[in-house]
């Protein structure tokens, strides 16, 4: 299934051309097409890592702004998606490390810790923020999983998101995170054990 997803998200043939066009002429149109193509992927990763819609939005914006700034120096040494994931992950990591994110996370964590047991009442508005996911019928499970993810340390969460949600290969995750594949595997295994522990009785 993951492979199916991978094939579904594989870069379009014109991706390289869009990048080169931007590199040639700083074409805003090319940049916009790249954003539109990858915005959901980036936003999803950001949301799963940060656990917050607004934070994810900010991180996604920041990711693409970094892409805009540095795309001119992109040398195609890795896949654009790998490069994009790397930027997104680093952006989220920085945000999580920031003081404001830590304060925000406390509020989310306290709220979401109780939310699955309380039937999801008031979930997603822990910070008083709007969360469209709340509107979905199956959102409860999703929020349970997200709560379990939020409990993981950031580095494990990132790996779990990349592997189990985004379906990236160990090799690509190693490229994105800069870790060795063995380290990636062992950490992902650790993250899974923790997640399964959290989700026991829910899944």
């Amino acid at each position, binding site marked *: 299934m993951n492979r199916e997803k991978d094939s579904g998200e594989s870069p379009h043939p014109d991706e390289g051309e869009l990048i080169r066009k931007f590199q040639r002429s700083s074409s805003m149109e090319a940049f916009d097409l790249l954003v539109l193509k990858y915005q959901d992927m980036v936003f999803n990763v950001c949301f799963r890592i940060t656990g917050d819609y607004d934070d994810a939005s900010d991180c996604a914006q920041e990711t693409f*702004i970094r892409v805009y700034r540095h795309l001119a120096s992109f040398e195609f040494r890795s896949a654009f998606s790998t490069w994009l994931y790397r930027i997104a992950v680093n952006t989220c990591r920085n945000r999580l490390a920031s003081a404001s994110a830590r304060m925000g996370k406390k509020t989310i964590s306290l709220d979401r810790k109780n939310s699955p047991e309380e039937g999801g009442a008031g979930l997603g508005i822990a910070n008083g923020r709007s969360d469209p996911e709340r509107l*979905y019928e199956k959102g409860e499970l999703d929020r349970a999983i997200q709560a379990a993810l939020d409990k993981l340390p950031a580095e494990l969460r990132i790996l779990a998101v990349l592997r189990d949600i985004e379906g990236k290969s160990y090799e690509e995750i190693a490229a994105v995170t800069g870790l060795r594949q063995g380290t990636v595997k062992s950490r992902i295994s650790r993250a899974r054990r923790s*997640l399964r522990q959290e989700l026991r009785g829910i899944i």
Partner: protein
Amino acid sequence: MKCRRTKKLLEEYIEGNLDRDIEKDVEEHLRSCEKCAAEYNELKKYRDTLSLMNRKVAPPDLLDRIHGRIHEQEEKGITVLARRAVERIFLPARIKLPVEAAGLIAVVFLVFVLYNPFEEVKRTVPREGGPHVEDTVPAMKTKHRADAPLVRKTDDRKRARIPDEEVRLASKVAQPKISEKKAPASAEVAVTEKIARSEKQDSKDSLYRVVLGPRIEDEAAVDKYAKEKAYSGNLSRDADSAKRVAPDRSVADSGSENEVSRIKALPVSVNMSISRITGDSGGKVISRKTDPATGITRSITVSIPSANLEQYMKRLRAQWPVKEEQLPEPESDKGTVTIIIILPLQQ
């Protein structure tokens, strides 16, 4: 295959990364072990659930926000760059400004104080009509003309202290063979004045002044001389006009082609004419003062026997309008009279 090993391989098995043989072993164990099968089912469910999680959709205004932030940051970047540039320029200046400002103010103040008076002098001096020579001439004028009696009286003591060498030099200068050797103009003036003073002390001579105006009949004289020269081929020493314009044989004997132009070099003529008139009157040229900038003789100090003074002045007046003159009383016919002849600017 035992349960422990099977559990370790379950993740790889789900991901399809195991060799076919090992995969078969795992499958066989799962069929026989309920615990491991339950573990497998739980893990598979977990994997499927996470992979099938709702994928979040980016906010519809994400692209607009990105554009907004890029634009904002570019503006901010420009502002920041501009601010940094301004800071780079003015921040060090802000620290150094008090010291530099104080220094600058001090320099400006000094320049103002020092140069302003000079500028006034520079403005006034040229109006009096001369560069280097005229700077000194008006001073001499007032000293010797307007304040002459007072200055002489007050300066008597000082004059009495003039060393004997200078007196001897003065008497030497007053000898028939006058050294025409050029010395710096200022030194000449100083010597001249000292000579005059010492002579006044020793004898009853006085230093007098004659200021000549531009000679009007120069052109006529030149023409006349040129004509005479053309006819005779020789310089007629008897003719007054010849004396005026061609006093020097070296000049007169030179090639006829450039003779007129030489004659027209009137500064030489004036200088030499005065020399000749002075010699004719039994006097001597003591010194000449030359403008170092132009090379034109500005003043000639001559010593004339008092008896011939009237004749001398008559001949001078015949050639140049005498603008000012300060001369001794006619009754003093004994001794010599030292006169500074100030030559006209346009000779």
